[in-house]
Structure formats: structure tokens, C-alpha cells
């Protein structure tokens, strides 16, 4: 069951996505929140994954956290990128030990006259580049690995 994760003041909360209550929005930010215990007049606005609430004379900022951005249970994301098809390594843009950002280019391969950039699939540190410039490879060959994620 999909839970939702929110962070308030640095604390994370894991909640069920089934909510006890309803909200009725006026359109300008004013809302009434109702549940079995009663109703509350609050001001609420959401911008992307950031939620601002003013309730009972206090202002709160709540961030919704994408559960996928949190480390998963041991069975971590793939650490090695494999070749989607046979080809040649055109250029290598990263080095072992280098810190890379999600989406940063690691190497470029060419196949069937098409060049593909292999980019980092998450923030991390490059563990090993398995091939050198000019190397040929088959489908499924390991290209580059990122260091495994720690909790």
C-alpha cells in the first residue's frame, strides 16, 4: 500500500495515503478541513512538492518526499550500466572515484551510427569504468559502475 512521506522541521513522517478527513478549498488559499473530530479553518497552498499551511496562528512548511529518492531495503538500485546493444566506446567523460550527479554524463558509445550518452542514474561516486576508449562490446556488457549506496 502506497504510503506517503512528509518532512516537517526536519522530521520525517510515513503516513497512509488514506486520509481520515476531507478538505474544501475556497480557491484563494483558505480551506476547511473536516474529519470526525471537527472542522478547522486553515490556509493551505501547495507548490510542487512543498506544502504551506497556516493553522491556529502558526505557519508550517511540509515537504513531500518521493519515496523512490530514499534508499531502498538493501536490494539497491542497479549499480552497473550495461550496454543496450553492441557497439564501440567513443569517449569516456568520468573517472573512478569521481562524484557525479544524477544525469551527469559518464561515457559515450556508438552503435549503428547512433551515439548514445550513458549518464549517471543517480547521485553517486564512480566505482569503475569497465572499458576503454575504442573498445568494442556486445549487448549486455558492463560499461560503468557506481559505488553501491550506503543507508
Amino acid at each position, binding site marked *: 500500500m502506497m504510503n506517503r512521506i512528509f518532512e516537517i522541521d526536519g522530521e520525517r513522517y510515513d503516513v497512509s495515503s*488514506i486520509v481520515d*478527513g476531507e478538505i474544501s478549498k475556497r480557491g484563494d488559499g483558505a480551506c476547511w478541513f473536516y474529519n470526525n473530530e471537527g472542522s478547522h479553518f486553515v490556509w493551505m497552498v501547495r507548490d510542487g512538492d512543498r506544502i504551506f499551511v497556516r493553522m491556529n496562528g*502558526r505557519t508550517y512548511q*511540509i515537504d513531500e518526499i518521493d519515496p523512490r529518492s530514499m534508499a531502498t531495503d538493501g536490494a539497491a538500485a542497479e549499480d552497473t550500466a550495461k550496454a543496450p546493444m553492441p557497439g564501440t566506446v567513443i569517449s569516456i567523460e568520468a573517472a573512478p572515484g569521481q562524484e557525479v550527479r544524477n544525469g551527469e554524463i559518464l561515457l559515450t558509445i556508438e552503435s549503428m551510427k547512433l551515439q548514445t550518452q550513458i549518464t549517471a542514474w543517480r547521485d553517486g561516486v564512480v566505482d569503475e569504468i569497465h572499458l576503454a576508449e575504442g573498445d568494442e562490446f556486445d549487448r549486455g556488457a558492463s560499461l560503468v559502475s557506481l559505488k553501491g549506496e550506503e543507508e
Partner: protein
Amino acid sequence: MAKITKTLIANRGEIALRIVRTLDALNIASVAVYHPLDAEAPYVEAAGEAVEIEGDTPVGAYLQGERIIEAAKQTGADAIHPGYGFLSENAAFAEAVEAAGLVFIGPRAETIRLMGDKITARTFAAENDVPLAPSVTLGGDLAAFLKAAKEIGFPLLIKASAGGGGKGMQIVEKADELETKVSLAASEAERAFGDGTLYAEKLVGNPRHIEVQVLGDGQGNAIHLGERECSIQRRFQKIIEEAPVPSLPPKTRIAIHETAVGLAKATKYRGAGTVEFILGSDGAFYFLEMNTRLQVEHPVTEMITGIDLVAEQISIAETGKLDRVQEDIIFEGHAIEARLYAEDADNGFLPATGPLLVFKPPKGLGVRVDGGVKEGAEVSSAFDPMLAKLIAYGTDRETAVERLRAALEETVCLGVTTNIDFLARLATHPAFLAGEYDTGFIAKYDSDLKPEAMNKVDLEILLAIACLSGKGPFAPPPPAPEPYASMGEWRN
């Protein structure tokens, strides 16, 4: 002296809007200048005309004196109001404005120069029987300065001569920190004001910061419009100000007024100005500085005197006369102003940026809001983080305090972090309620002023609201149809 028909406001934000209001009331055409970031700002919309300006930085645009004067000439303005900050205490600008044949709504350039330099200001003050705290100036001789500073004793306050607002200021508790802090202050002052000149003065233990509003006709006549209490400060930035000053012995109040007026007269002050003092717990007060411009917190004076200070500035600029005498000034009631800043008061007061998604200023009885932003505006780090001033007025301090509290509670600011909750905690603190505080207030009650922990009920409601606020990365399932929804978790 001639009637002013059109005024260009060399400023932005809330003060620009506030000046436009008075210009409208006086039927004087208004011209605004704006950097593209301010194109949608309320003051630009409110002004009769607007001229775009540019600069290396957004703030820099508003310091382009020549360009601004050109804009005034272009639009046929006959006067420029400099507001506060920016070019308001720039003597060269004041001269340039008058040289261009325009009226500078403010003091003469020489007064600006005199009071703009902390050292000349203090010298002048001393010559005119204005009490001063023991101090020494850093001339070229660092060693002599350090020696004299040590002689004054600790704790010591190092201040920039060329400017204020907390920049170039350092508190030195012990002798061994002196040299490091002096060089820190000097470099900060150099960066902020282009002038690293410093002076050191004895730090009065937790003094109160009291200032007096004065008006002068430029001929040597001056009156005061009462004093203001500005001790609630953080890092020398004022947060809450009030008028009149609570719990001030009548003799002291009179003495401060008289001293301020005396100084204004001595400078043949023209226009509106503020003389700032430090008041020690022993009742002794010392001259701090004189601000030759309108102050941010001027509204509290306006509320208790019923006098529009911007209108007074314009009247003095037009006629060269004060249209009132001291006896005409009646003080009624009490006013308190709280400054709403885009900053995270719970995390080191770091400036905050973001879209002002929901902004509902308070509208209660006795509440005045001088705001510079409207809902939907993007608060950026380009400019000063002050969003608005919330001013509450009442027939007595108790009423004003209650109205301020209610106004703060009513205010809604969502989308960018603001100090609204912090202001509410300040305004309801027992020491504030009693009117007994000094500049050490925030530091002293630091733990009281921290936000309370959230209670469980509120937390649950918040989380429920968060779930209902939108779908999040994984959209929740659509609701079950009937009759399933009504059966809940039934199992056979």
C-alpha cells in the same frame, strides 16, 4: 520655493508605495523607477508613470543617481523623493538633484554629509552639548586606535563610520579579540560603504535604543514629533518599534526631546530627520547618530500624532517653513510596528526566497499595513527581505499590543518563509507586554522565543492536510465506490 507638481521616487518597495499614497492625496503626480525585477511591484502600478532603470545588480539600479535624475527630467518631474536607504543619505546625489534644477525632498547636501560621516556627526554633536558615549576613531594609526580602544574598556562596540544597518559592526568582549574584530569590521565596512573608517565606543550594557523624530524648516527652526522605542533588534536590525516609548521617566523623555531638537536646530535641519540615542539603565543617554531621511518606522509616529510625515517633507520642500509649532503637536494613543521579513526565524534568520503564493495582510481595526509586495510576487534575494510593515494603533498601549497580536495572527504568508510566527512570539512575550525590555531582549529570551513543539493533534491534522493537498509522486487511489466506501474495512 514653488509648488511641486510631479515627484519621482528614487526608491522601491513599500516606501515607494507609501510615498505614492501621499502624493496622490496631495494631487502631485508620481513617477516610479523600477528595475525589471520590480516591473510588477505594487508601487510601480500605483505610480502615475514608471521608468525602467538598470544596473549591474538589481540593487545597483536604484543607486544610479544620474540615470534617475535623467528619468526625472524626462518625465517632467520637478522633485525627487529619495525614500530611505539607497541614495537617501548620498550627499553627492542630493547636490546633483539640485544642480539639475529639481527639488530634493530632504535635507541640504551639507547636512547629509555632516551627519553621514559618523565621526563628523559625533564631533558636531559634542560641540552642541549632545551627550556622547566615550569613543575613539580609527584614523590611519591602527596601533593608537587599538590602544585607545583598550583604554575605553570592554565590552566595546566597533562601528563603521560611513554607514549603519549593522554592517561593519562588531562587539568586542575581550582585549584579545580586538584586533581580529577590528579588521573584520573594517573589511565589511569597505565592502558595504566603500569606506573602512571605524570608530570604537563603549558598549553600554543592554541599552535601549530610543530615537526622536524631528522636523526642521532649514532656517534653524525645528520641532519634534515624539520619540520611538526601537530596542527590539536582532543583529542591529530593528524588528519591532513603538511610540511613545513605554516606561520612560518624564524627565528623561523631555531631555531626549530637547536634545534632539537642539541638534536639529544646530544643523539648521531641513525636512524630516531622526536623532538616535542609546539609553542606559541608569537613565543616562548618549547620541548614536542622526539619520537625515525618513525612517522605516516612521508610521508609528504618524499614528500617534496624526501627521503625515511625507506630506510634511513635501510642505517643507515647497514652502521652506514649518506649518506647525511644537505646541500644535498632540500625542494620542500608542502605535506599534512589526516588520515582516522573508527569513527563516527558526533557522538562524537566513533570508528566504520563493513565490509569495498566499499573502493576506491583516485588516483589523486600528491596523495599518505598509506593504511592498503583492500575492503572487517572487521574493528573491536581489533586494532587502522586508515584505511589509504591520502597524497597530490603539488608544493605549494595551489596546495597541492586543491589536498587534490579533493582526499578526490574522496575517497569512505562505510560499516563502517569513518571520510572522516569530513576530507573534515577540509580541506576546511577557517582557514585551510589560513594556520592559532593552536591546538585549531577543538574546535574553532566546529560548522563550523558540517555537513550541508541535502537539500530536496538530501534527495529525497537518499530515492529513498534506495528503489532501495534492497527489504527490504516487497518486493515491481513487475513492472506493459505494456501497464499499460506506462498509469500511468489513470482512466476512
